[in-house]
């Protein structure tokens, strides 16, 4: 047994946390800790990152290529892909093929994919799931700065005196950044935090002011702020005059909103709160505005971004320590994708679709076939698949059948598409199920390359293990297809360092004030050797002759990347979400992440500890709305929109505004029968960024009247029972199925569900109440347990699940098992702290026992002492004492 420590980065969000992993390669075992030296996280990790080591099992991996449901060899599979794409292009032209790629790819994978599609297949049809995530930020940056440039860095969070969080549940979605802000605020009590979000999220735990604005009214709020800045005399006249254009138009446009009272009315906010926000903003020089999907995922997303940037330009608070607008990206390498040109409307290395840039790239790549026009962005791309304009699509490292808006339409499109190729590291996703050719890619723990985080910091993601099975790196797979299509010369790569060097060289190619000046320049690495690449330390681009050690901030010098080198104020007007509520669809659906899951759960759901905090697709709804629509807490709701429908567990929450519901984005067809939120979402896009309006869809909700509710816990996975409502959840040592449905069920159905399991049965029935319970044990070990009821009043699964960990259940335990109730004190309750698996009951007991602060609870139970993202909940429990 040899232990090796490897420094890498986390697989999940855009924070880009550094990880130290102790690896036992021979045992395929690794442990994970935050890297104390990494400037993104300084040792912190969130619950998801902490559980990475639980996601590296090979059981759920795709390890062999498959064609039409049969295993095959790489040569056959690669030839089929190359042939399929070549044939399609030959017959229908290059725009009949497409790549849909992912912010989960490493920069090197991304670069090669973009190069193949745009440069050699000759189509712009490569788009990325980052389109769903931050393309509005890209578009907003470009409009204001001329380039897609993030001006600041994380260190600014700790230098600011006012932190404005817009459309971001940072506590759950970027937990490590939230912890940094929280620690900063605790150390400096004068620091103010304003949260602007229709929902009262866990992030509000640290807010001095929460503005629960009407969804989509952000532009009005920030236009009002721009006017307030002007009225307060806080305009930075020198900066505006010397370094910006167009402020008059912007202010004139902003004034259309009227006075503060009028803005407050538009935003459905208390005028005093708005006034206080404006006062804080005007009064606080060191101020950053952090924003995320609540801003971006909108049909006015780009305008929202510019409304925010306008305020920072107007005050000159940009690119200076503790100041600036800052987009928090969703994915580990969304930024890397932006750099290589992963979006259909950018070329490569922050070069655009114009004659100069096309010429640069064409020459650099020696690609005469380079596409001259942008391709289709995600929503349009899948529409083109649906209508048959695109006949071959290659999807890499993403799951659009779940994550796209109008996801049923995407599913139908792929079902009808003549050639669907999917590269993925896991064996089963909703999208893989529709693939003709499945290509096994390496996943986190095997991939080797670079990623760029939200603050432009390039870090190495390193392999912990050799490639498993027949899995291959994405860059290798793409390059092999390129070679088979006759482009061998342009895809000679043997190692990711070669790709990185080429990417770096392109970024510096003719990149100067006299030729074509761009922000993105990492030309220092243009000749990087493998050893230096392997040893690369985290660094913020640009990394070039002028900034050999990288650069923390842009624009303090007032030099932007527009032709005039001036920033542009963008006049923006309030535009409401495209689809309004109506009598038929009276509620607004908002969507987003939960604390312990990532995207479509293909990896996080493998870690049992991450399935404990929230285990089912749910809908948050205001108590009065719940009453109006006759919804009971914990019952099941049927939600439908013009585009689709789903079933979700009801959570009544006063943190929702009336008339607005929230559903997490994560659940899939692989994990649920009717829990795909994406099916509901309107396929509306922002005209500038083409980003979908995933935060706003009119929907209708009603109670789903199940005749029965039930669950199964089983040591082995089971075939899915017939049930309209079904969620599959991996627990520690067991698989869990939550069920509900129509018709009559009884003990015989439970027996049928557990048919494949062997063991002695025990059963309990109260037929007139429709209550049936059934368990199988073998040699005293629990094999499976299933329970049915006419209502949702079923025993807690937590304690029953813990019985799978017991090597023997004694006769007393056996007799009590079907009561579903732990002997007093044995049930730790719903998991609150995912890092240390600490339950709600344990915390309540500690509070009863005298703990009166989160610190004391941490000392006693360890809860909240790792990632800290459960601390708001622990506080709530303390408050409820």
């Amino acid at each position: 047994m040899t232990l090796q420590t490897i420094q890498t980065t986390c697989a999940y969000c855009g924070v880009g946390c550094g990880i130290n992993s102790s690896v036992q390669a021979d045992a395929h075992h690794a442990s994970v800790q935050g890297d104390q030296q990494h400037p993104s996280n300084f040792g912190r990790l969130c619950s998801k990152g902490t559980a990475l080591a639980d996601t590296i099992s090979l059981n759920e991996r795709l390890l062999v290529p498959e064609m039409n449901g049969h295993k095959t060899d790489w040569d056959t599979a690669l030839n089929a892909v190359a042939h399929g794409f070549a044939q399609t292009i030959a017959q229908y032209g290059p725009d009949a093929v497409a790549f849909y790629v992912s912010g989960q790819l490493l920069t090197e994978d991304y670069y090669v994919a973009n190069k193949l599609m745009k440069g050699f297949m000759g189509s712009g049809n490569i788009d990325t799931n980052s389109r769903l995530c931050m393309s509005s930020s890209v578009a907003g940056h470009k409009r204001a700065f001329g380039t897609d440039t993030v001006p600041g860095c994380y260190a600014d969070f700790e230098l600011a005196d006012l932190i404005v969080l817009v459309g971001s549940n940072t506590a759950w979605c970027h937990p490590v950044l939230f912890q940094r802000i929280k620690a900063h605020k605790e150390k400096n009590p004068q620091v103010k935090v304003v949260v602007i979000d229709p929902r009262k999220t866990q992030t509000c735990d640290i807010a001095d002011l929460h503005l629960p604005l009407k969804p989509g009214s952000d532009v009005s709020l920030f236009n009002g702020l721009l006017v307030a800045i002007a009225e307060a005399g806080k305009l930075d006249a020198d900066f505006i005059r010397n370094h910006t254009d167009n402020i008059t138009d912007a202010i004139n446009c902003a004034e259309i909103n009227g006075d503060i009272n009028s803005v407050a009315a538009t935003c459905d906010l208390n005028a005093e709160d708005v006034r206080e926000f404006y006062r804080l903003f005007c009064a606080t020089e060191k101020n950053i505005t952090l924003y995320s999907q609540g801003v971006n995922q909108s049909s006015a997303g780009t305008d929202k971004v510019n409304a925010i940037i306008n305020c920072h330009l107007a005050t000159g608070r940009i690119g200076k320590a503790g100041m600036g607008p800052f987009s928090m990206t969703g994915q580990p390498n969304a930024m890397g994708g932006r750099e290589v040109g992963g979006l259909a409307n950018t070329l490569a290395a922050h070069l655009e679709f114009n004659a100069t840039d096309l010429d640069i790239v064409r020459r650099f790549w020696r690609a005469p076939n380079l596409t001259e026009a942008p391709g289709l962005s995600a929503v349009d791309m899948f529409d083109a698949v649906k209508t048959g304009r695109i006949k071959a699509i290659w999807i890499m490292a993403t799951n659009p059948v779940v994550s796209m808006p109008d996801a049923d339409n995407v599913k139908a499109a792929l079902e009808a598409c003549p050639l669907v190729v999917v590269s993925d590291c896991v064996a089963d996703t909703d999208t893989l199920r529709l693939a003709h050719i499945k290509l096994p890619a390496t996943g986190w723990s095997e991939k080797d390359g670079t990623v760029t985080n939200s603050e432009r910091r390039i870090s190495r993601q390193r392999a912990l293990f050799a490639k498993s099975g027949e899995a291959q790196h994405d860059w290798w797979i793409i390059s092999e297809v390129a070679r088979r299509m006759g482009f061998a010369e342009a895809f000679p790569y043997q190692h990711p360092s070669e790709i990185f060097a080429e990417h770096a060289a392109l970024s510096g190619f003719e990149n100067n004030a006299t030729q074509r000046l761009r922000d993105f320049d990492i030309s220092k690495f243009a000749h990087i050797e493998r050893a230096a690449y392997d040893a690369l330390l985290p660094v913020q681009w640009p990394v070039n002759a002028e900034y050999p050690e990288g650069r923390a901030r842009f624009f303090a010098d007032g030099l932007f990347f527009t032709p005039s080198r001036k920033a542009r104020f963008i006049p923006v007007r309030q535009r409401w979400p495209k689809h309004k509520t109506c009598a038929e669809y009276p509620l607004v659906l908002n969507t987003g992440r939960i604390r312990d899951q990532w995207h479509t759960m293909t990896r996080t759901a493998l870690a049992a500890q991450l399935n404990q905090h929230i285990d089912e697709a749910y809908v948050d709804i205001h108590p009065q709305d719940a009453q109006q629509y006759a919804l009971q807490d914990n019952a099941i709701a049927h939600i439908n929109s013009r585009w689709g429908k789903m079933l979700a567990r009801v959570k009544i929450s006063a943190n929702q505004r009336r008339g607005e519901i929230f559903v997490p984005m994560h659940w899939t067809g692989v994990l649920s029968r009717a829990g795909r939120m994406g099916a509901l979402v309107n396929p509306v896009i922002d005209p500038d960024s083409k980003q979908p309006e995933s935060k706003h869809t009119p929907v209708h909700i009603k109670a789903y009247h199940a005749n029965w509710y039930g669950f199964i816990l089983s040591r082995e996975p089971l075939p899915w029972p017939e049930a309209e409502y079904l969620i599959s959840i991996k627990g520690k040592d067991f698989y869990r199925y939550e069920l509900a449905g129509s018709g009559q069920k009884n003990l015989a159905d439970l027996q049928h569900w557990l048919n494949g399991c062997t063991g002695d049965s025990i059963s309990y029935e109260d037929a007139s109440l429709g209550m049936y319970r059934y368990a199988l044990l073998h040699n005293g070990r629990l094999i499976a347990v299933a329970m049915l009821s006419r209502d949702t009043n079923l025993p807690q699964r937590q304690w029953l699940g813990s019985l799978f960990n017991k090597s023997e259940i004694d006769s007393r335990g056996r007799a009590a098992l079907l009561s579903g109730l732990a002997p007093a004190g044995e049930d730790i309750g719903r998991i609150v702290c995912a890092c240390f698996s600490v339950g709600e009951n344990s915390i309540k007991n500690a509070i009863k026992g005298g703990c009166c602060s989160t610190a004391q609870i941490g000392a006693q139970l360890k809860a909240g002492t790792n990632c800290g993202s459960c601390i708001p909940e622990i506080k709530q429990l303390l408050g409820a004492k």
Partner: protein
Amino acid sequence: MGRRLVVIGNGMAGGKLLEELALACPGKYEITVFGNEPYGNYNRIMLSPLLAGDKTLDDIMLNGREWYAANGFNLQAGADKAVVAINRGRKTVQCADGSETPYDKLVIATGSNPYFLPVEGNDLQGVMGFRAITDVNRMLSAVGEGKNAVVIGGGLLGLEAAVGLAGRGMQVTVVHHNATLLNRQLDAYAANLLEENLRSRGIHFKKPADTAKLSGSNGKLEHIHFADGSSQPADLVIMALGIRPNIRLAQEAGLFCKSGIVVSDSLQSYDPSIYALGECIEHRGATFGLVAPLYDQAKVLANHLSEHGVAQYKTLPTATKLKVTGIHLFSVGNFSGTDSSENLIYKDPANAIYKKLVIDNNRLIGAVAYGDTSEGSFYSELVESARDICDLRPYLMFGRALCEQMAGTPVMENAA
């Protein structure tokens, strides 16, 4: 008022009454007790363990002769002291030996007789009941390896006798008129579990079956014949078909009897000087065969005789148990249910555990348990108290402790 109290019968009921009197009003009466068995007071319900060899005679004695002496009770025990007549006019009782004893108050506790099938051959040597130590002694003397015993009646006593005899090495067949063993105590599912257990002990069953006649030679039993025409060899036949109140003395004395001696709630017969208790009585239409109501009656009667005079006897549902090592079964109340009743059922077939709770109008009205009877007393209490169990319903099957944990208080007032 005179102080002479005579008790006819020194069985479970009579013996218990003496104990209660010794507590309630020591010395109030001059008490004479007649018993036709030559012992002190023994625990009749322990005859099965005695037969099985799990207990000895000493083990099952409740009160020896010295106890009677110590308490000043005049015990007249033995066949010659069997009471043969009551003379209500003279207020005396007469024994087999001709002696006559006067009473001021008389208690009849003559118990019951086993019911003998009225079939040909029921008087053959080798046919017997199972009520007394003498029966046990006769059985034990007939025991022999490979000999055939037939028990007629698959009730509690019959099965206990069958297990005892099988344990003594006999080939035992139980004949039962119903397909369900213990059909007055168990439902079919529990009875099947019991039957499996008994079969594993080598006991055979013939059921449903009716006995047509018994046959033999030289007055000695040799075969049993069934109504279906079949027959089998039998060296021993135990009649275990139930009991009949022993009311001969009372009837001959002209006391009003139906199935048993009819008594009031204070256990007084139609003759104000004469009381009765135990298996010989009929109270509000009910007769008795289990020990618990006898004990309750003894308490009430002692209370009355001691002239505290407030207690009234009330028949309560009675739980039953089978006294066979390794078999746990329990039933109480109406376990067959009513038109409106609802069943809660728990099954653990691998461990031969079965429980059924019968609920009607939110009350527990009956329960059957096989294999795990640990919550029997809890269910008995709930049936007796007729408590509304609506709030406990989901936990009821899993016992008192869970019910109390969930209810947050003791479920039964007397369970604290």
